[in-house]
């Protein structure tokens, strides 16, 4: 267990991964991953399909053997002490169908029997908002309800650590938001959460830190805002275009890198927001350009990924 002495306090990482390796034949699914997840943190593994996210999670929860590297989950090595790891974690796997003919509460009771200690089924149904559907057969639940039930299952043993593999894939925006609320509640309860997603927005909303993964390697790791500041420091100032302002004029303003013209508005990309904005304000008083709809946009993790790989994440 990684323990950093800080006076009398000890800080213990919930998850420690060091130079993790896994190949399927010639394909290196995981190629030297290293990261640590702190206790109480929501940590995201972010990357396109096939990046190695699911393989990583499956190794961490003891469902897959690793080829090399070291792994500690809640202080245990999942390859050696799989059962110990399994009692300390909650898991939601991708594309899993549960028992179609059992009801929500029956499935929770069944899973509760697998653990020595378990939370009351009623509390969990309430937490995920399925009290009204408790008697409904699994096969009759909607996609969002099924996913909420699977999140409730991750908490049945009151684990320290929760693993969520693509928790919102295939859900509509409303159902997705409902799941985000549940993850938020997990964080408030002090759970450590490791989740994978290929939705950049989801990572930005939920995660304190993310690791951007592609081809089994970490390309960048940090808080979403820091990553954006580091890799896409440009800001874009959007103003409506009018005849009095030529895009070429805007491009010559200080600190402006380039201008994108689209649908009657100009996105002025700048390396220095203050300088460019001051110049635009001065320009507007001379030419009477309207600034009613002026907007300033930051980069997103999507832009970070594009910057790092030259691809969008869902290509």
């Amino acid at each position, binding site marked *: 267990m990684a323990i950093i002495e800080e006076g009398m306090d000890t800080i213990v990482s919930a998850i420690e991964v060091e130079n993790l390796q896994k190949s399927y034949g010639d394909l290196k699914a995981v190629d030297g991953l290293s990261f640590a997840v702190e206790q109480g943190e929501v940590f995201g593994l972010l990357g396109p399909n096939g990046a190695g996210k699911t393989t990583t999670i499956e190794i961490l*929860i*003891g*469902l897959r053997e690793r080829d090399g590297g070291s792994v500690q989950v809640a202080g245990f090595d999942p390859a050696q002490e799989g*059962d110990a790891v*399994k*009692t300390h*974690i909650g*898991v939601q*796997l*991708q*594309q*899993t*169908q*549960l*028992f179609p*003919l*059992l009801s929500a509460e*029956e499935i929770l*009771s*069944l*899973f509760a*029997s*697998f*653990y020595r200690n378990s939370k009351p089924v009623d509390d969990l149904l309430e937490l995920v908002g399925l009290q009204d559907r408790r008697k409904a*057969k699994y096969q009759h639940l909607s996609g969002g309800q099924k996913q909420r039930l699977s999140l409730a299952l991750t908490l049945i043993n009151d684990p320290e650590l929760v693993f969520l593999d693509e928790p919102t894939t295939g859900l509509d925006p409303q159902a997705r938001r409902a799941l985000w609320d549940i993850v938020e509640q997990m964080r408030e309860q002090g759970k450590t959460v490791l989740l994978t997603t290929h939705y950049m927005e989801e990572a930005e909303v939920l995660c304190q830190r993310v690791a951007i993964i592609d081809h089994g390697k970490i390309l960048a790791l940090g808080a979403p805002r820091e990553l954006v500041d580091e890799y896409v420091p440009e800001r874009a100032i959007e103003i409506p275009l009018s005849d009095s302002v030529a895009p070429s004029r805007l491009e010559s303003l200080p600190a402006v890198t380039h201008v994108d013209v689209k649908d009657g508005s100009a996105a002025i990309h700048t390396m220095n927001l203050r300088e460019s904005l001051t110049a635009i304000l001065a320009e507007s008083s001379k030419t009477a350009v309207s600034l009613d709809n002026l907007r300033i946009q930051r980069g997103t993790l999507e832009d970070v990924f594009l910057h790092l790989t030259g691809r969008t994440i869902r290509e």
Partner: protein
Amino acid sequence: MKALGILTYYTGVQFARDKVALFWTLAFPVVLMVIIGFAFGEAGTASLPVGLVIEDRGPAGQAVAQALAGIPIFEVTTGSQEVELAALAEGDRRAVVIIPEDLSAAWQRQEVATIQIHLDASQQQSAGTAMSVVQQVVEGVQREFTQQPSLVSIETHSVQAEGFRPIDYIAPGILALSVAQLGLFGATTLVEQRQQRLLRRLQATPVSRWKVLLSMIVVRLITAFVQTGILLGVALALFRIQVVGSWPAIIGIVVFGTLVFIALGFLLGALAPSAEALIAIVQMVNFPMMFLSGALFPLDFLPEFLHPIAVALPLTYLADILRQTMVDATPYATVLQGMGILLLFMVASALLAWRFFRWE
């Protein structure tokens, strides 16, 4: 233990809620038996060729010969010992009964007489039947003659005086068939759960694979009990089949047979890439097995070239031992021999299934 109990309970709950599975396991065998039972149960008897050698020209010999000729399922031919035994060796007789010269004399003296029965060992089914019937008949005649309890030395088992009807053959066959189907389909839940990645989800909890498997096997066994109860209940009430074997032996064979076919089912499950494929494979095994195994009608009805297939089908053996136990009076050694063959099937299937089943 707690986990196993609850897991078994919920596995059972799911099975009980699966209307289609319930129909095929519980209702279908009964329907099949009732249809076949009413169609062929009383009439259309398959006759057994029996050779009769009458060396006793006295009244007792005549009476036994007449009584045997009067048995509907027997097709009696009378001839000399050499001719009849040769016919038996040729496979033209299932049994040859030799009435000794001194029968009338012995019975007059109230002494025990020995009646020899030569049986075709390759046709245990019908030979066993023939032996039981002959014994029954001869003892009946002897009682009339001598007003004495048994003065005949043959086997002590007996079928009931009504004799052996097709339904007595069909009912144990259908029971064997249902047990076989229950087992062969035994891996569908497991393969479905693998396909839905539920097995993987279970593996991410501390519950062991053994408990998951065991819960499915226990539920199948309980279902087999219910199925047997319903089938035999209907067979007894509707067709008045004559059960001569002991109930513990019958239940033991049902349990054993279920386990054998569950092992086979898991082997098929190990070979099938998906639940849909598994069901197709089971049906491919199931239908030929139904007709080529002698579960529903005697193998004698099938052309000779199909007999080797029957020998290779486990259902042939399960149907045989169930029938031998339920309605024939077959020596235990013969039943045990059949069980031994089934045990080999079970062990081989279980080992192969364990070797080839993929959990993901």
